[in-house]
């Protein structure tokens, strides 16, 4: 019985070498390389940065890119390249933790709704509809403006306003799987509800969750940079790509490099996560894969 049970409960996704599939997709590989590169940059910032990102140098303010300062200096004479490198830490940290929070909330609520159905499902999904009706940036603005705009608060608020997609995904997966034979088999062999939900159904939803999470990091980084740009995100002097752009905006007519490079950094980062996410989607979705029509 144990062997049969084991065989039935194993989901189809686990046996397929989708990693090889990912390797065949040049865009996904590019995404993976970008994300990997950024993680290395963020982790080794103190060794990579040529200057202290906070060091003010009044002799060299607003210098255009040169050999001494590869990406120029800002109005306080700080080295833009060093600030960009340290900014990678903030962006990646906020992106990843915010999405982590969103994934935990989304998975829990989605699993509850999909597993129990009936009024629990109705209540949770109506709540999802309500939150989806808010332009999230308005909600975030309202909350952040009242709270302290610290990095911790920003991560929490972005996480609390971006879990709805994951909740819908997980719910759909639970709805379609809870009547299947392997769940019945687990139930007959005496598994508890929690055990069925977490160790039998949830593993099947890992693939779509992984895709949504990867794509979500890009979105969260964009949101953080927009908030910092508006002045309610990461506060100076801590360098973040968003607040560096604010300085760029204030010196638009005299220092193009201030607005060019931080924006480019955001673009490349978000692009990397999106390419990786889409590549994962294609590699993990058997429908697309088997038809041989990879994007």
């Amino acid at each position, binding site marked *: 019985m144990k062997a049969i049970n084991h065989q039935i409960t194993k989901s189809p996704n686990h046996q397929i070498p989708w990693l090889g599939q990912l390797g065949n997709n040049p865009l996904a590989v590019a995404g993976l390389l970008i994300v990997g590169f950024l993680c290395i940059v963020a982790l080794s910032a103190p060794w990579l940065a040529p200057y202290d990102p906070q060091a003010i140098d009044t002799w060299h303010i607003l210098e255009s890119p040169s050999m001494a300062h590869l990406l120029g200096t800002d109005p306080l004479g700080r080295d833009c390249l060093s600030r960009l490198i340290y900014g990678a830490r903030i962006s990646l940290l906020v992106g990843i933790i915010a999405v982590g929070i969103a994934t935990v909330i989304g998975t829990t609520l989605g699993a509850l709704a999909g597993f129990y159905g009936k009024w629990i499902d109705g209540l949770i999904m109506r709540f999802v509809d309500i939150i989806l009706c808010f332009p999230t940036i308005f909600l975030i*603005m309202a909350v952040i403006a009242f709270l302290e705009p610290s990095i911790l608060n920003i991560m929490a608020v972005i996480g609390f306003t971006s879990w709805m997609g994951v909740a819908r995904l997980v719910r759909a997966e639970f709805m379609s799987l809870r009547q299947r034979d392997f769940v019945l088999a687990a139930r007959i062999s005496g598994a508890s509800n929690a055990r069925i939900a977490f160790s039998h159904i949830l593993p099947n939803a890992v693939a779509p969750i992984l895709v949504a999470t990867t794509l979500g990091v890009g979105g969260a980084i964009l949101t953080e940079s927009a908030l910092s740009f508006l002045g309610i995100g990461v506060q100076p002097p801590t360098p973040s790509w968003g607040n560096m752009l604010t300085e760029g905006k204030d010196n638009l007519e005299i220092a193009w490099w201030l607005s060019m490079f931080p924006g480019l950094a955001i673009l490349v980062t978000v692009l990397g996560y999106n390419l990786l996410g889409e590549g994962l989607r294609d590699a993990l979705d058997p429908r697309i894969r088997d038809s041989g029509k990879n994007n």
Partner: protein
Amino acid sequence: MALFLYLIKKIFTLGPTFLGITLISFMVMHLAPGEPMSLQTDFNPKMTPEMRERLRAQYGLDRPLHIQYLQWLKGMAVLDLGLSFSPDRRPVWDKIKERLPVTLLINVLAIGLILVIAVPLGVAAAVRHNSFFDQVTTVLVFVAYAAPAFWVALLLMLYFGVHLGWLPISGLHSLMGYEQMSVWEKLLDWCRHLILPVLVSALGGLAGLSRYTRSSMLEVLRQDYITTARAKGLPEKKVIYKHALRNALLPLITILGLSIPGLIGGSVIFESIFAIPGVGQLMWTSVMARDYHLLMGNLVIVSVLTLLGNQLADIGYALADPRIRTGVQVED
């Protein structure tokens, strides 16, 4: 008849959703520290605690929260959004009313631009699947989707405004000599000021929608009835535009409805960059001044617009999809 019932059912689900929105907005605002009064009173040396209490009572802030909410809801029932907490004490609706048209205009123009460019682009990429054109547009769309709108706005301002000097970079119309212009010159002046904001606010949606069009079209082109149409010997143009596109556009209606909150949310950012006096800017000032009524009013208006957009999308979907129109599909 089925369509009518479908719409009635839809409208009845709106009420609870709307109530939920107002309740959450209200809670978010009041759970956070700070009050409208504190801006006016904290730094005023003549303000005694008794005076502050009297002021709070005058604004109704001394009552329990649930009473305040019910009070607000009672006003809402007769479409009264209350008075602004700012010193001018003007009705919230008046303040929103004078700014709403600008925001709506820009968003409608942006949606129009998105539709006109994204759909043909997506269809062309799907029809030439895996061709050079498809690959180039795919990469371009990915780049456009990842570009932060406010950064693109800065670059466009830098290039077209500062470097070339072709387009104005802020405001809705020229400050100098605007009064002396003829009607046509005024219109032209407006258009020149609107080009960059509309472009910027359309960018993200443009990339998203053309990507959806492409994948939706690919999905449809794979289906049996398309093969049948081709086997019947129909010209390729007819197969694509009459048979495939109509079905491929269905999911796009919903996507467009869902993208409305994002578009309106973007208003905050581009209105702040281009100094456009719209709802986004009003929202911003109301948040900063903790103007509860004005903030609530803004959130309500924006969420009503969103709900309306979603309803229009649903109705459009029902009109376009015979399965819903005739009530064949029973599952919701």
